[in-house]
């Protein structure tokens, strides 16, 4: 069975994820929030802008993308180990690469814009196209066209997908420990992602490419 993205999006959206009587959203073995995109954007862009012109631009990017790595590792990893995944996505999986296809379908229920896999070369390269990504759509609402990509979380997420599958092996349902995080994201074989197009820079969408970092 192929990955049926619409069925996955409908199933996740149909979970009606909202706070319980404690004001918390326990799902996928995690505690979720339906957070304000603008909050993330204002906070993240404040860091990026504060360090621009100081020679520390790349450090700001590294910090923000690193938060995206943490997100991918724990959120994507947690989802891929969850009962919800076993119920909805796992029955559609017929290849290792379907783990990424399935996770991208779940992401498309998260309000992050529309993610589409343009290219997936196993263990080598992942190219994701994002329409209406919340980071860059938010940038364009509040700031002039950017000279540099602003899809920080997305870059961390795209790299994280590859690291979960090809540096580690999420299909074996490993414990998502600090040590395992280091193994996946601090290894010579770790993937990193860069934007080749970016909505914030005036392109019509973001395109992120994950490859092994030299």
């Amino acid at each position, binding site marked *: 069975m192929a990955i049926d993205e*619409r069925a996955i*999006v*409908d199933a996740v*959206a149909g979970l009606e*994820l*909202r*706070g319980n*009587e*404690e*004001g*918390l*959203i326990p799902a*996928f073995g*995690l*505690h*979720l*929030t*339906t*957070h*304000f*995109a*603008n*909050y*993330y954007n*204002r*906070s*993240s862009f*404040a*860091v990026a802008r*504060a*360090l621009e012109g100081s020679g520390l631009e790349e*450090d*700001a990017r590294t*910090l*923000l993308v*690193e*938060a*995206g790595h*943490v*997100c991918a*590792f*724990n*959120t994507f990893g*947690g989802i891929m180990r969850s009962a919800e995944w076993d119920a909805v996505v796992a029955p559609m999986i017929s290849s290792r690469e379907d783990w990424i296809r399935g996770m991208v379908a779940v992401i*498309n*229920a*998260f*309000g*992050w*814009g*529309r*993610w589409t896999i343009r290219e997936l070369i196993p263990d080598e390269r992942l190219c994701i196209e994002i*329409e*209406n990504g*919340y980071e860059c*759509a*938010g940038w364009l609402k509040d700031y002039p066209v950017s000279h540099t990509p602003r899809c920080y*979380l997305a870059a961390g997420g795209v790299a994280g997908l590859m690291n979960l599958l090809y540096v580690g092996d999420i299909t074996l349902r490993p414990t998502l420990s600090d040590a395992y995080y280091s193994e996946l994201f601090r290894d010579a074989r770790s993937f990193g992602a860069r934007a080749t197009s970016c909505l914030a820079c005036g392109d019509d969408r973001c395109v992120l490419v994950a490859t092994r970092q030299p």
Partner: protein
Amino acid sequence: MRTPTFDADRGEIVLGGQRLVFHCHHYNVALQRSLEDALGPRAVEIQRLAAAETARLTLASVFAESDIRDFDARMQCAASVFADAGFGRATIVAMTSMGGRVEVAPSHYALGWTSKWGTTPNAVDHFAAGYFRGALCAASEIAPERVAVTVLAEAAAREGASTILSLEVR
């Protein structure tokens, strides 16, 4: 409308004209820590202002769309939106249009922080502080700079603690 709408074709969830996105506590507190690593104490005000502005804009729309005009009902609605979004349970205490107190327990940010890094004497609940500052602005329809928020206690300080916010209109 207090229920977010989801547009699958655009990958967009919207409440009160503002985009919402799912994220879990791992990312929320990791991003917060990154901001503080980069900017130090300045990061606190940046996060509070971002939360206040977003809450004010969202809630003003929600109040208008749902025709909620009464001040108390507006503050209760703000607490419901906060809880529905998974930020924790907020109790509005002795609140008037001139200010009052909000208690948050459990708090998503505090739970996230303590689960990853343990309890801390430092302030963590910047989002809640900013959110309820924005909520009071929207409920009273006053300029944002007139509302001051003071954090009297933090849920991340010890197991079972609450975040207590004091709001004052100047």
